[in-house]
């Protein structure tokens, strides 16, 4: 009835804006509580309590942190390039949000069901490096610059093997559409079973891609203070922080769609398939995110040459061989999509 009052194009625009809000608002809440979960999980692993003062069980801690960052003063370092300096965190944050447009939360629950969804995700994640390298340069600070350069080299290196991992899944599916990838896993099995080595490589690569421990050389606090965001304060810092955590959730979502069957239940029988798909999706994302936190609390930081060696000399040849192997097996058994 309301749709009759407005011109159809305007109505469509309003609907899309509402859909975007439906994705972005829970995402930001998830980001806030991911920071809380991180502190709690690492606290538990190190036999501490974690945040427990603000609110019951410390549940209001993220809000207090947010309020604090909001009220602080934004400082521009002297000699910094102001436009680029302020653009960098905005870019990081925006890129972390726009990638969610193609993630399917359930069958048909996707903002833009485009045919090149996987390529879009890959393109957006490869742009993430700009926020970091721009902030490093614009800060006019040695520490920030070194952090930015390190991070850029690291992200470019790990993107290569990540691309090959994605390719071996895409060959199996025969489509770049994310919904198709999940539907194929419904017909066959979750790709974590046939592509287990690729799943491991993917998880390690997304740790490197999001600059998380043990690959957090971009911000290694013991040598670079805080790396690329050392000069940032208040909301500009908060945007980097939010962007980083939103990226973690996004990469976990990507791993879930590619390998863990997206919104599909573990087994397709009575008590499990009563639970809505979006809950399954969220649970799986949480499981992958737990691995992020677990790894951070467990492993020491990699040395830079070891990081590069792992990316270029181990992951790249291995995933390249796996692509050849996958296509060979698919061709030999006649499983290639569109074949026969």
């Amino acid at each position, binding site marked *: 009835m309301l749709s009759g009052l407005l011109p159809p194009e305007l109505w469509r625009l309003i609907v899309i804006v509402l859909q975007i809000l439906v994705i972005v608002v829970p995402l930001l809440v998830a980001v806030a509580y991911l920071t809380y979960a991180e502190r709690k999980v690492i606290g538990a692993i190190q036999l501490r309590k974690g945040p427990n003062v603000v609110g019951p069980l410390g549940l209001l801690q993220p809000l207090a942190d947010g309020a604090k960052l909001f009220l602080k003063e934004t400082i521009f370092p002297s000699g910094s390039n102001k436009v*680029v300096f302020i653009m960098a965190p905005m870019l990081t944050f925006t890129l972390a949000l726009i990638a969610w447009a193609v993630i399917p939360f359930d069958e048909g629950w996707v903002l833009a069901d485009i045919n090149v969804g996987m390529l879009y995700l890959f*393109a957006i994640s*490869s742009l993430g490096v700009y926020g970091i390298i721009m902030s490093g340069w614009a800060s006019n600070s040695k520490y920030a610059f070194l952090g930015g*350069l390190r991070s850029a080299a690291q992200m*470019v290196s790990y993107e290569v093997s990540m691309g090959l991992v994605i390719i071996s899944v895409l060959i199996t599916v025969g489509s770049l559409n994310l919904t198709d990838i999940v539907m194929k896993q419904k017909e066959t099995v979750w790709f974590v079973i046939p592509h287990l080595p690729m799943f491991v490589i993917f998880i390690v690569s997304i740790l490197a891609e999001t600059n998380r421990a043990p690959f957090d050389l971009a911000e290694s606090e013991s040598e670079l203070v805080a790396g690329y965001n050392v000069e940032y304060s208040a909301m500009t810092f908060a945007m980097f922080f939010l962007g980083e955590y939103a990226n973690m959730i996004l990469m976990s979502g990507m791993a879930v769609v590619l390998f863990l069957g997206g919104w599909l239940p573990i087994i397709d029988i009575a008590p499990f398939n009563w639970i809505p798909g979006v809950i399954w999706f969220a649970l799986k994302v949480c499981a992958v995110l737990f691995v992020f936190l677990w790894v951070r609390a467990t492993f020491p930081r990699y040395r830079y040459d070891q990081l590069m060696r792992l990316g270029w000399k181990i992951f790249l040849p291995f995933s390249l061989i796996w692509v050849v192997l996958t296509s060979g097996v698919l061709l030999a058994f006649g499983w290639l999509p569109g074949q026969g």
Partner: protein
Amino acid sequence: MIAALIFYMFAGLAVVSAGLVVTARNPVHSVLFLILCFFNAAGLFLLLGAEFLAMVLVVVYVGAVAVMFLFVVMMLDINFLKLREGVAQYLPTGAVIGIVLLVELAVSFGGWSFAPDVEAMLASPAPNGGEVTNTAALGQLIYTKYVYLFQASGVVLLIAMIGAILLTHRSRSGVRKQKIYDQVGVTAKDRVEIRKVSTGGGI
């Protein structure tokens, strides 16, 4: 109507940012404008319905090539103001090259003739009236009809890569590199030795 507006927005921004690439004082700004230009080109591809090309443009040019440009420009310590002093000197040569290019383009555009079935192709960028997605169509063409050319371009890129590595690689002496296999193969026996030490004797 809206499509035309969006086209002019992308096209206009592409031209403006391309101009700014050349005129920006700060070389890092130049690279950032170059990235903006790539983005607008990707947008134009999207409007044409070539979504694969648009995404690949972003992945390859923005995600990899421009990162390297940015890297190099940030690392180089060149006094760009000094570099700019010679602009007046080089301007005539540059202008001549530009004009020659423009004339060549005009000549080839003058002799332009459209293929007879172009109308149908323009109507749907993907074959069979959009039945096949444009990524699949591109793949089917590259890997069947043009497979030799495709492989040849791959070989050209490989040779370029090997050449670049060969030209820049130098073997330095006195570098202490970690030998991973040796290190993994180490056992406690290689590192720890238990000695009986007599009192006051030492080793």
